């Protein structure tokens, strides 16, 4: 088994795995929302409604492809592609486990350990903005244009605090590569605290989480598709599988951002105090690290659902105000403090 074959298998596996999480995530969202709101949620398609995402998928596939007459055809078709392709491909740099030794070959549970790590994620994140603006403008409907403009402004202005929070991480760990950062989160520091990013960068963590919510257009930042104001924003005019691409892209964004949060701040595959790697054999440690990482990611996915059904929505100028006047000063302050801290301790 030479390297390129392993790479292909890894790519296919992780792609299917992320799609699977995204599919299950739609069910978790609907079921979680229901249980929060004192109602049972989907329970008709399969036991506990588990086939509901399958039903949605089939529905989205079989619906008729309608392109509105006034829509600008090329932009209308390009929109969802430009939104979902970056979303699917950002998971390439996010690890999903430590490493596994199979038949004498050591395989890193990460599609590609690129040493520019989350710069790649930031770049692809801003690519997704094109998908939204083209979709909004392409369908030439006033609400979609408004939705497209809103989401562009929001995504762009929340890239900055996201970048600042990640910059502080680079100060602490000295490297961009997510795998190295994950490895560095081993052991404890200051005696009792596990060596995780959140304890080194508490303010950075909060900044990152808030900016991640804004990037993924999740409540309380779901301005671009605020149903009550602009009739579900940029994907108003979209129908079957194009709408599917937008929705799936959104959920895959969630999975990616949760993966990055866990990898940077929550000690991706390390248990707080016990180092399992030493006790378990190479194969079982690979699987166990995969499961630990997945459990942490699912916690953050649940956080997205949980927050969505608790909070009201921001207004457009408040989102901008919070972004520019709130988070960016905090980000700079965080970088200053981290730099000071490193200067004093090293």
């Amino acid at each position, binding site marked *: 088994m030479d390297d390129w074959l392993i790479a292909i298998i890894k790519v296919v596996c992780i792609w299917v795995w992320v799609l699977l999480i995204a599919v299950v995530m739609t069910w978790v969202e609907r079921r*979680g929302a*229901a*249980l*929060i*709101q*004192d*109602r*049972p949620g989907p*329970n008709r398609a399969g036991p*506990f409604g588990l086939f509901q995402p399958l039903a949605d998928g089939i529905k989205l596939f079989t619906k008729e492809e309608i392109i509105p007459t006034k829509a600008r055809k090329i932009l209308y078709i390009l929109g969802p592609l430009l939104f979902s392709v970056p979303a699917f491909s950002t998971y390439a740099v996010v690890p999903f486990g430590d490493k596994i030794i199979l038949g004498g070959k050591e395989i890193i549970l990460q599609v590609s350990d690129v040493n520019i790590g989350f710069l790649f994620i930031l770049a692809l994140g801003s690519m997704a903005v094109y998908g939204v603006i083209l979709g909004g403008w392409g369908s030439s409907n006033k609400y979609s244009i408004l939705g497209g403009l809103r989401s562009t402004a929001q995504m762009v202005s929340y890239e900055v605090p996201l970048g600042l929070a990640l910059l502080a991480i680079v100060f602490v760990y000295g490297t961009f590569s997510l795998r190295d950062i994950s490895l560095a989160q081993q052991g404890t520091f200051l005696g009792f605290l596990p060596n995780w990013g959140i304890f080194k960068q508490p303010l950075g963590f*909060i900044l990152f989480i808030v900016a991640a919510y804004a990037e993924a257009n999740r409540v309380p930042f779901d301005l671009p598709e605020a149903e009550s104001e602009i009739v579900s924003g940029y994907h108003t005019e979209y129908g079957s599988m194009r709408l599917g691409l937008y929705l799936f892209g959104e959920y895959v964004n969630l999975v990616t951002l949760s993966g990055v949060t866990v990898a940077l701040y929550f000690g991706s595959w390390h248990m707080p105090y016990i180092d399992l790697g030493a006790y378990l054999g190479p194969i079982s440690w690979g699987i166990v690290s995969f499961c630990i990482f997945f459990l942490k990611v699912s916690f953050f996915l649940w956080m997205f659902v*949980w*927050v969505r*059904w*608790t*909070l009201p929505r921001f207004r457009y100028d408040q989102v901008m105000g919070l972004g520019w006047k709130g988070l960016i000063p905090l980000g700079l302050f965080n970088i200053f403090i981290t730099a000071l801290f490193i200067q004093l301790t090293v």
Partner: protein
Amino acid sequence: MAKPVVKKEYTLLERIYLWEILKGMKLTWGHFWFNFKACWRPGPHTIPTCWQYPEDRTREISPVFRGEHMLQRDDKGREKCIACGMCAKVCPAKCITITKGKRKEGEENKYAAKTYPASFEIDLLRCIFCGFCQEICPKEAIVLGQNFELARYTKEECILDKHKLLLNYQKAKEEGKLRPPRKRVPVVPAPPKPEKDEKAEGAEAKKSKVAAAGKAKKKPVAKKKVAEKP
């Protein structure tokens, strides 16, 4: 028009979003956890606030519910309705049409009175289920039952003819979902009449429109005139 500018003063805890957000999330977690445990219990009606309607019809419907109509029979199995047309006249939506028929000799056991409705139609598409027909009926013949599943495929099926109305009564009788007999609404007693002027003495309308049965003899004269008008 100078809009009064409002100064927003927040406490520190309110100014940072997180504290209130966490309190809100604690509350929603409470609901989630309660329902999460609830939905593991077997049986359809697990979450108390939500009825799985088609499977779980255990919700108790009030006996006075105003649902699909039915034409009642008295205890000897004879149709009570005497086709007086009061219900057709009082109906705000004008959805009841009756044609009168005289009772022949051999049909004493079929109809309670001398006249009976040859055809009795209620157009469910026009009916607003206000219950005026059952309230004004002197013989308590037409009554609104507890059936609310009125969806039908064609318009014609939505016209309830006499046969269907009697069938509804039959079904309700078997299921024991009959409407309790109408309680007489107490009315303010008649004021003591010191002098006997002609109009008050004649129209001793003892009760309001609800219990028309107990009218004084003179009254039917006026009533016959009322019934003639279409």
